[in-house]
């Protein structure tokens, strides 16, 4: 494995660190010891076949799934975990989890916008009701964000009346509204009709270019190659190969990665 060699102690602060992460669902071990480091401003694209554990890895980082073993740190702060009594781990400090989650913005495959709120209400919900910001300031900021993703005119519409691409762009605006230290994208274009993928990728590309820290689970290989500073190839719950996009895509070392790349192209 190349993983360890790449974990240099740089002077750039680490936004997200994952060490030796294991996760089992019942008897099935989905993650078998994954380590990962995302420094500030890095875009890490996590690729791999279905069932390779890439979504589970992402969901463990903000504790939507509780790992069975391993350590997770966000911006140098390790998430406190204790034994759950069944051979796994559970968070030992709920307040810490909630605080850390407000620094990691997640964008879901199926958008998960709150359907009883307008786009504007979706975007200001967390700033106002979780982070305690002033409502009028949150609205002003949300207007900027919605304008940025091209949905300012739709700010008073409800999500059910929008296309998938529009909903996902709104979800990205919701993510940006918490001024996250890192963004987690869980297959953000997989639920979209092909003609709507482009508009969402444009927004994500834009964010990558302004130097945001991102962990991106994706099936869009061309896009991963274009925006990622590092590619992580997961196979069967392990990091099979890892490195700069050119290296990984043009000179894959492992046979499995070679097969994977040829199968998706």
């Amino acid at each position, binding site marked *: 494995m190349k993983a360890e060699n790449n974990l240099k102690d740089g002077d750039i602060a680490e936004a997200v660190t994952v060490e030796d992460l294991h996760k089992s669902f019942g008897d099935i071990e989905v993650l078998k010891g994954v380590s990962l480091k995302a420094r500030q401003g890095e875009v890490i694209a996590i690729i791999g076949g279905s069932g390779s554990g890439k979504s589970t890895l992402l969901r463990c980082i903000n504790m939507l799934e509780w790992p069975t073993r391993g350590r997770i740190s966000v911006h140098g702060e390790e998430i406190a975990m204790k034994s759950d009594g069944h051979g796994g781990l559970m968070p030992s400090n709920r307040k810490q989890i909630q605080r850390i989650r407000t620094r990691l913005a*997640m964008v*879901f495959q199926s*958008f998960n916008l709150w359907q*009883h709120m307008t786009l504007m209400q979706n975007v200001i919900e967390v700033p106002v009701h*979780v982070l305690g910001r002033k409502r009028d300031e949150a609205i002003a900021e949300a207007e900027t964000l919605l304008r*940025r993703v091209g949905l*300012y005119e739709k700010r008073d*519409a409800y999500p059910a009346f929008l296309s998938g*691409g529009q909903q996902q762009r709104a979800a990205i605006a919701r993510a940006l509204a918490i001024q996250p230290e890192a963004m987690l994208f869980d297959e953000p274009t997989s639920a979209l009709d092909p003609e709507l993928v482009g508009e969402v990728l444009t927004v994500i590309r834009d964010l990558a270019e302004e130097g945001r820290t991102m962990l991106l689970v994706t099936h869009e290989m061309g896009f991963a190659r274009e925006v990622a500073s590092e590619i992580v190839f997961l196979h069967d719950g392990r990091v099979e190969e890892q490195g700069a996009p050119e290296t990984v895509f043009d000179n894959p070392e492992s046979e499995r990665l070679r097969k994977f790349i040829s199968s998706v192209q």
Partner: protein
Amino acid sequence: MNRQDSPDDIADIETPPPLPRLSALMRPHRIAIMAVALALVVLMAVKMRWDWLPEYAGMLLAGFWITAVLLVASTVLGFLLAVPLGLVQVTGPRILSWPARIFCTVIRGTPLLLQLWLLYFGLGSLFPGIPEIRQSFLWPYLREAWPYGLLALTLSYAGYEGEVMRGAFAGVPNGELEAARAYGMSRWKVLTRIWLPRAIHRALPTLAGETVVQLKSTPLVATITVIDLYAVVGDIRQSTYLTYEPLLFLAFLYLCLTGILVTIFRHYENKIPTRGM
């Protein structure tokens, strides 16, 4: 970046379609039906006796008031009970979910009239034998009939709506709750900001219908000596020897109340437009 979002504008409908225009009502068959209805009303006004109305207006108003208060109080209190009843059945530990399930099943599985009589004649005859209760500040109320009526109606509404809320809570897409957690909301915030409003919104059409049914359950309290609208009309019939006029007027008043209820619920339903939810 300020792109146009025209290519994927699949829907611009942000408000429900408007009510039918007046011109749509002016079709031959509709005109005929309206003419018959109008003729009936005129006939009733002219051919039947309504001279008793002014004399009993005060009693009717008092009865109307009792019915309205019973309805509003029992639905509000019942709903406050229904929310935890539904919630614990979806997410609660067994020690809470089982009693909730049993409560809803028993309430929904037995006649309201029976529950009302068990409370009034059962509890109502037990209480006077307990000195602590006779001496408590509650006794002046417990001697009356209406608290038992209100209690029975409240429990009934809670039982039915507990079941409705269970379904509504369970039906909120998990992804939306997960998004709420992923953005750092506490359990309480997830419940009050996302889960409950979303569940109520889903349940509103059902709740509207159930509340109308609840209105028409209120006359049962007349059987335990509460003088509601129905009881007043019964009194009027006995003292005027009129058979139909008071009953028709009673029907008219319940229709008015139903209309008010439906309008209120419709208002809240339309606040958030739905589409394939």
